[in-house]
């Protein structure tokens, strides 16, 4: 099975292990990821902060190239890229004049027909059904699934999962044998692209997230976005300085968690590349009383 | 050249759409003046002859609008109207009238905004299709006298 693949710039650099783990996972399930030829950067936050047309044109070129290649589905593991591509597809779909203008800027034919999948949608569509039978080494830990902003917002356009207290990643982690804990910072912002320019802000925002996960006895934070990862992982010294603590909890990509569960080794999944060393706790599952239990039932109201 | 301003007749029921159009007015929502309303007790009252009579007399488009399904003041009138419309579509095709010239919609007494949308969308759609100039050629006018089928 061949599926279009847009890695995005960070997966070629700072988030190399994300690409390694996604590719390795895909191979396990006999999926061939076809990189969009000659893809460019989506422009990320910088483009939409500074220039609207640029922020439309860069993603449009990527999708136009995918269309030219005949790719109907493209998986975009980076949440930021996924967000940009989806929003541009939506905006151009709603405005024909704008669409033709952008087409002329990028000098390519763009229809807007490609389906943009984030990493979880990709897994759900192609892997989930076969996941449980392939699990050989259950991921037997307490995991705080962190969705961040760009995967779920704006809900009106992305229409992915629940916008408050999302569950899709929790479900995957549970299927991989993990215990997805209930916590409060699933969709709070980590500071996003301010890592370099406002490190203090990032330390505070990511710090609050780290602290809540740590307080609730998570062993790992699970992410689906290179930006979230770099803020929580690479900025750990700044976070610990802000919190006045020494939190050593590793941050894993969801693809790494599933990879571990289906028996891939740490090196293939790039676990060695994380800045915060990945150490597996010795006593995997803690006493049930310490773990905040997920509230499954809702209060029964008046019939 | 002057822009084509279509003549559109709206046949609406008294209980839902007429009241809805009243609400559009009460809410001061603006819409195109091309559409003029003729009131009926119920869309169930509106038969083929009435629609054809409108085309015969030079209408470029028609709106038929009544209560939402299940909301009919008379229980079932709007269902009869809907069934009739399904049959009429074929007849219109046969007669060479674009089916898009008749817009069928449901506008409740609470949907003032929707009525303005229905009117404006219909006007835009009819402008797209263009004026209806074949009306004199319809056989209807040769089959019936000007008074239509009367009861006297």
């Amino acid at each position, binding site marked *: 099975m061949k599926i279009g693949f847009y890695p995005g710039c960070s997966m070629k650099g700072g988030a190399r292990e994300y690409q390694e783990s996604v590719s390795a996972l895909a191979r396990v399930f006999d999926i061939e990821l076809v990189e969009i030829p000659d893809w460019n950067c989506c422009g990320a936050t910088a483009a939409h902060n500074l220039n609207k047309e640029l922020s439309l044109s860069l993603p449009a070129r990527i999708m136009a190239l995918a269309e030219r290649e005949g790719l109907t589905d493209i998986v975009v593991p980076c949440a930021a890229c996924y967000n940009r591509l989806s929003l541009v597809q939506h905006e151009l779909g709603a405005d024909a004049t704008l669409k033709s203008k952008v087409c002329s800027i990028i000098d390519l034919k763009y229809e807007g027909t490609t389906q943009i999948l984030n990493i979880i949608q990709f897994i759900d569509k192609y892997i989930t059904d076969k996941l449980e039978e392939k699990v050989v080494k259950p991921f037997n830990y307490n995991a705080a699934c962190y969705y961040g902003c760009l995967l779920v917002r704006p809900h009106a356009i992305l229409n992915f999962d629940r916008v408050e207290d999302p569950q899709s990643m929790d479900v995957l982690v549970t299927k991989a044998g993990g215990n997805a804990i209930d916590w409060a910072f699933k969709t709070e912002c980590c500071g996003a692209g301010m890592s370099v320019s406002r490190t203090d802000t990032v330390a505070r925002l990511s710090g609050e997230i780290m602290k809540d996960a740590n307080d609730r006895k998570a062993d790992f934070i699970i992410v689906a976005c290179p930006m979230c990862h770099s803020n929580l992982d690479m900025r750990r010294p700044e976070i610990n300085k802000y919190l006045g603590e020494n939190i050593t909890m590793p941050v894993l990509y969801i693809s790494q968690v599933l990879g571990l569960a289906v028996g891939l080794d740490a090196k293939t999944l790039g676990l060695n590349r994380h800045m915060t060393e990945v150490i597996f706790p010795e006593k995997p599952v803690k006493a049930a009383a310490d773990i905040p239990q997920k509230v499954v039932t809702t209060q029964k109201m008046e019939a | 050249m002057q822009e084509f301003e279509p003549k559109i007749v709206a046949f609406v029921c008294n209980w839902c759409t007429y009241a809805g159009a009243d609400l559009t*007015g009460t809410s001061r929502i603006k819409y195109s003046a091309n559409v003029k309303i003729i009131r009926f007790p119920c869309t169930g009252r509106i038969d083929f002859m009435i629609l054809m009579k409108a085309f015969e007399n030079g209408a470029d488009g028609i709106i038929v609008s009544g209560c939402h399904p299940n909301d009919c*003041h008379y229980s079932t009138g709007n269902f009869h109207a809907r069934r009739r419309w399904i049959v009429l579509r074929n007849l219109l095709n046969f007669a060479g009238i674009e089916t898009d010239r008749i817009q069928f919609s449901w506008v409740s*007494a609470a949907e003032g905004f929707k009525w303005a949308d229905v009117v404006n969308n219909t006007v835009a759609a009819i402008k797209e299709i263009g004026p209806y100039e074949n009306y004199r050629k319809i056989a209807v006018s040769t089959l019936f006298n000007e008074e239509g089928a009367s009861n006297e």
Partner: protein
Amino acid sequence: MSRIGVFVCHCGENISATVDCEKVARISGELKGVEFSADYKYMCSDPGQTMLKDAIREHKLDGVVVAACSPRMHEPTFRNACAEAGLNPYLCEMSNIREHCSWVHPKSDLTTDKAESLVRVMVEKVKKNKALNSIKVPVTRTALVIGGGVAGIQAALDIANCGHKVVMVEKLPSIGGHMSQLSETFPTLDCSQCILTPRMVEVAQHPNITLYTYAEVESVDGFIGNFKVKVRKKSKSLDEHLCTGCGLCTTKCPQKKIPNEFERGLGFRPAIYVPFPQAVPNKPVIDRENCTYYIKGKCKVCEIVCPTKAIRFDQEDEIVEVDCGAIVLATGFDVLKPDFFPEYGYGKYKDVIDGLQFERLASASGPTQGMIRRPSDGEIPKKIVFVACAGSRDPAKGIEYCSKICCMYTAKHAMLYKHKVHDGTPYVFYMDIRAGGKNYEEFVRRAIVEDETHYVRGRVSTIYEKNGKLIVKGVDTLMGAQPVEIEADMVVLATAGVANKGSEELAQTVHVSYDAHKFFAEAHPKLKPVETNTAGIFLAGACQAPKDIPESVAAASGAAVKVAALFSNDLLTREPLIAVVNRQAPPVYSSCVGCFLCQSVCPYQAIEREEIKNRNGEVIRTLAKVNEGLCQGCGTCVALCRTKAIDIYGYSNQQVYSEIMALLND
């Protein structure tokens, strides 16, 4: 040749601001058959009507067109005026040049042109109008009241006290509605049950009132003065005549852990239960979904312990037919479901509750005997946050409107809390305080000044649980939108009032219209607030829109007066705008061929068979005939008649064709 009068109203400036009324009158005066035309500032005013009447007499008019507002507003006004001047009222028509013209188009020639053509349409229609006489039908002097909350109770008692029969239908096992769940009421803080329960008892004991609880309206046929209603009395699995209400069964029932609806899930009840101690009637019902016998086929403990052998496991639902002349809808409201506030954790965190749950906590007869204890661990909350506008004024979630009662009950909750927990701190997050009402503003000030409630102006963004506390993240917009974070022990959401469950289906059953939020629609927002668009059906209380108790009671009394006025007549007059099958001289008799397709589509069974006999008494033709008492004038038969033998007064083929031709041939 017709002698028609055209009267163009300015409606102050409502019409004349965008339509050249003088010109419309002038042009209309030149139309064929128009004898007289005039324009006037307010046609509906006394001088306006006098002008109309004078013109009818002076110019011997045989038809009148009033170009003014919607006929839904003033058609009766002008038709009555015509009648007073000796002109048959059905020779008067209105052109709607306000709602359908001046209010929806800008000032321009085009708008005036449209007004002119709307007048022309009606002039042509009036030419084909016929003088008609209204129809008289008898009235059944029984009222059906649907819903047994405070509004239904008030309406039923008022009507019954006028000497008319009332049938009250309540879907729950007891009457009392939401008011019976409340602890105290604003702005007097008097006990809700103390003032309500005597009235509930009065309903049960009133000789003119028949009460059906645990019952629902199944179908409504007929029309004003003559409704035929089918009521489904759900099986209570109990012989009510034998049951003494001793309550032994409820104490012995082995099922004890069913969430109590009356306590809003904060307490439990058995499967055979009386909803609350003061219930009327005070007799139990078996909740079959949760009863061990109905689930597993054995148990019957209640039957064994019942001293009067009143339990009936095989009892079936009963359909009761009610003939009534008027219907009062008093089905009340509901509050939002938990899934509405994912960001507030409502439904997820036990200590995030809604206002009605707080009422139960504060109620002396509630699950905590009136102590404010939080549901999770029974602790007394020392810091409590009230969130106003939880769902209300939130178009993103589909509710644009203000629920009206929340500001007041939130102030009341804060007060009750402070009165019971002296060392506690209540916070209220609000956007605006809407305290319009007698002694309302004073009440809110008391909550702030005397009871030291912290009012914070801003909406809460999110609530989450941490270390047994609820972290409430809000903002104070009066301090430059500074974020405010409160570690609360309990949170009370003032959830929006919404239309009751099943109100849409009920509206469709009863044939009344409803608004976008499924609240029942009044006939006119100002002048007919308790009437519906369906004659003989009235509204009382919060089924129309969120209302507090005084307003609900006032509306209920209003509806009761409407019913009493209706019942004060022996005969009702009805609009004669009904269908008619033509009759001609023998040997044709009628163009009706007797196919009776009309009979198959008539929703009112108003088509009868008339046999035409020759001199020997032999039937030679069977023709359709319309029963004047039953026909409601929908016209479906007219559209369907293959030989055009049926027509309808007011919307006849001739009239409609004239309208179409006048409209299009300008």
